[in-house]
């Protein structure tokens, strides 16, 4: 089920009541586990089996790792876990993509081959929970973490519904220890958690779905050729939509966990105030970028083997990070572009090591970063390269045959919302939400909270799925 639904409201109310009943801690954890399975099964019940497979494989792999005496045996258990998880991901997420590309390759070689339609349904959230379970085995393999004491705690770590389908991608060391002792939210945690959920849902239901999505769709999903203004407006709209959608999900998830007494990590830190691309990745989808860094980039050699190897590792990490987002070459291009940005920035930093920008140059670098990030969003949003080039041409003012696409309403709403988002990110770039709330007047907090909730209700969202569910 999605957070922005009546079903979730009822579900969450039941979970809160159950979690606060005077029951033993083990019983309450079982309640949370069953509720999480219900949360997942509400999409497509049979796919719960995949969740169980992922859970059981990594549980036994970690047990095997601990018991193994020889390094080769430890290695084998780790490989088993990685193969099982990535195999599942490869089949369900990339099966059709691999078949299509294989057929295209044969066709290029002059061999006619038409694979049967794969028709594989992508289990929601599979990319997220396979990464969470893999991090468990890998942390045990790398001796960063001990295995969980019992299967219940481990299964709950994998399945805990706030992070299950779209993150933040939790590490076992972040969550499993929280299951050791009984937890209930304090009254203040509950209220602040509810306030966070309101903020997250406002981002999703009001900003992303009600205002920004339509503008992006009109530019990206129509066969009309956009001019300079429409191409930029559509792309900026998407930059806001994907932030509000995904950061909205993370904030709601963090709030939901807090209402139950659990802490989840930050996943976003005002990314559109980033200055530079490494700064961007320290602010955008933090739990994925750090996962890729720890389990892909560093094992590929990181920066320990000279510049060439570093650049290669960087590019490979970002290309695979792009592919993680979806089985389409446009996502690979998106990741590749980020890889090139990061490599170029690294080279520039080495070349101009002593350069310290003044305030104006700092702001200009920030805007340049945001503009270049927007170019990458074109590949992320466009369904194919043809559309991506059309929009990029539009952004460069090269579409001579373009006609206006967006009406004044869309241009104004995109301009106002994106302007507010970017300004807020810059104002908040060195702050936390908590620090700002701590210094605000209680009446102001109450008013903002009420207005956000009111806007959510009158926006009448239609329960659209979050964009990242498809990844």
């Amino acid at each position, binding site marked *: *089920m999605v957070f922005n*639904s*009546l*079903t*979730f409201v009822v579900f969450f109310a039941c979970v809160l009541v159950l979690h606060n009943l005077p029951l033993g801690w083990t019983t309450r954890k079982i309640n949370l586990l069953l509720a999480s399975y219900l949360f997942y099964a*509400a*999409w497509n019940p049979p796919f719960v089996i995949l969740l169980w497979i992922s859970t059981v494989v990594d549980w036994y792999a970690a047990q095997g790792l601990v018991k193994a005496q020889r390094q080769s045996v430890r290695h084998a258990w780790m490989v088993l876990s990685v193969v099982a998880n990535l195999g599942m991901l490869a089949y369900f997420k990339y099966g059709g993509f691999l078949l299509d590309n294989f057929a295209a390759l044969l066709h290029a070689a002059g061999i006619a081959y038409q694979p049967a339609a794969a028709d594989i349904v992508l289990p929601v959230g599979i990319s997220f929970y396979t990464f969470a379970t893999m991090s468990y085995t890998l942390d045990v393999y790398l*001796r*960063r*973490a*001990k295995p969980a004491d019992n299967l219940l705690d481990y299964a709950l770590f994998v399945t805990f519904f706030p992070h299950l389908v779209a993150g933040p991608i939790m590490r076992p*060391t*972040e969550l499993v220890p*929280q299951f050791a002792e009984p937890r209930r939210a304090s*009254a203040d945690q509950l*209220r*602040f958690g509810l*306030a966070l959920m309101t903020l997250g849902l406002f981002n999703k239901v*009001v900003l992303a779905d*009600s205002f920004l999505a339509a503008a992006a769709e009109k530019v990206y999903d129509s066969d009309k050729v956009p001019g300079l203004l429409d191409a930029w407006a559509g792309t900026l709209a998407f930059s806001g939509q994907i932030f509000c959608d995904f950061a909205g999900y993370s904030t709601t998830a963090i709030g939901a966990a*807090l209402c139950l007494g659990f*802490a*989840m990590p*930050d996943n976003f830190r005002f990314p559109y105030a980033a200055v*530079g691309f490494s*700064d961007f*990745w*320290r602010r955008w989808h*933090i*739990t994925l*970028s*750090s*996962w890729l*860094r*720890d389990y892909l980039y*560093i094992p590929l050699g*990181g920066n320990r083997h000279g510049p060439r190897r570093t650049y290669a590792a960087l590019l490979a990490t970002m290309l695979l990070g792009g592919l993680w987002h979806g089985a389409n070459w446009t996502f690979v291009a998106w990741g590749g572009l980020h890889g090139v940005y990061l490599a170029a920035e690294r080279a520039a*930093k080495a070349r101009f090591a002593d350069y310290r*920008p003044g305030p104006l140059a700092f702001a200009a670098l920030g805007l340049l970063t945001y503009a270049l990030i927007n170019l990458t969003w074109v590949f992320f949003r466009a369904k194919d390269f043809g559309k991506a080039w059309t929009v990029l041409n539009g952004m460069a003012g090269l579409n001579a045959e373009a006609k206006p696409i*967006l*009406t*004044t309403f869309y241009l104004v*709403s995109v301009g106002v919302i994106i302007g507010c988002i970017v300004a807020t990110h810059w104002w908040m770039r*060195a*702050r*936390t939400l*908590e*620090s700002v709330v*701590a210094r605000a007047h*209680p009446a102001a*907090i109450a*008013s903002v909270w*009420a207005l956000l*909730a*009111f806007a959510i*209700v*009158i*926006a*009448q969202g239609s*329960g659209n799925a979050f964009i990242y569910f498809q990844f």
Partner: protein
Amino acid sequence: MPSSISSSEAVLELRDLPDAGEDAHAPRETASDRPGVAQPVPQRPVPPQPWNRIALGALALFALLLGGWEAYWRAFGATPGTRNTEKLWANQRRRIDAGEGGATVLVGASRVYFDVQLDVWQKLAGERPIQLAFEGTSPLGFLEDLAADPNFHGRVLVGVAPQVFFTGFAYRGHALKTFQKESPSQRFGQWLSMNTVERTFAFYDPDFALATVLKRQPWPERPGKHAFLDVRKLSVSEPDRATHLWSKVETDLDYREVTRAVWRQEFVPDPDDPPPEKMLEKRREQIARAAKIVATLRERHIPVLFVRPPSGGPFLEYEDRAFPRAETWDALLAATGAPGIHFQDYPELQGGELPEWSHLTHADAEKFTAALYTIVARDFWKKDGAAAATATATDTPAAPPPTAP
């Protein structure tokens, strides 16, 4: 446990840049600050504030705002009612696979949706049809689905609104996917919505949603881009999609004028319209598509009856001009071999009040339904069923009477 990897492996970061405005409340560390190590349990501090008072204040203000919003829309004429959504359509479509495969099914666009009154039909026929028509939506996609569904063995009344049917326009065509892919949580959510929110709040209607309301404000026109008026709320529905024209369209002259202004936009050519030859090609495609579907249904002994509900005023003039009967309706019946009822051929189907030229008032829709059912039962779907089950235009027992003015 110790990390096997040095924590100095910070690579995907840019530590050197100044961080303007850093203060005592600087961001806490995240995983991005701790490369290659086990991540600790996150910190999630609650800002020190009187949260009890804040929550109560927020709740009070929220209730006040919501009460004001509800009062505004009630004063506008809205009342709580069933929301006209694709999930509601899916509920009805599901009935066919849940034991009602022999039912009479209505498909078409808004005219069949608003003008055929299920209560009246049920009273006369002894059975309540399943309403699967959808506004602004060609019925052909839904018909294809029915033709492919082995559970369906009833009969179909297909509404023909020329500007929708012969262009293949499917504003709500996604309803079929909603039906096919609806998750258990979505179905439960629909049930919850119908039994709680929709029964309580008048503002809970897509026409009163925040973005919709803002969008229809008089924004300045962008040069080269005309902002078309969106269709406003026209109807009121019951849980089984029994639907009729909203009384506000009938009684509020200003609102009626707004709804007419929306239709007027269709009567003039738009620069974005496809060229005439493309329109003709599209028309032929839709007729061929219909013929194929009817052939499939006929093979399965499922009777199909086309109905052209009434329109009037400038709307009818536009339809006669852009979709001449001989090239559309007559061609459709000829190509499919299926029978049809055109309102212009039956005096008893004419004369109803059409406040915005396209849909009958509630009272006249009831009269129209009674007249329509009488014709259907008399000339096409006789009570004994079998004889007329495969009736075609060529073997229709009673030739339609001459067109009345």
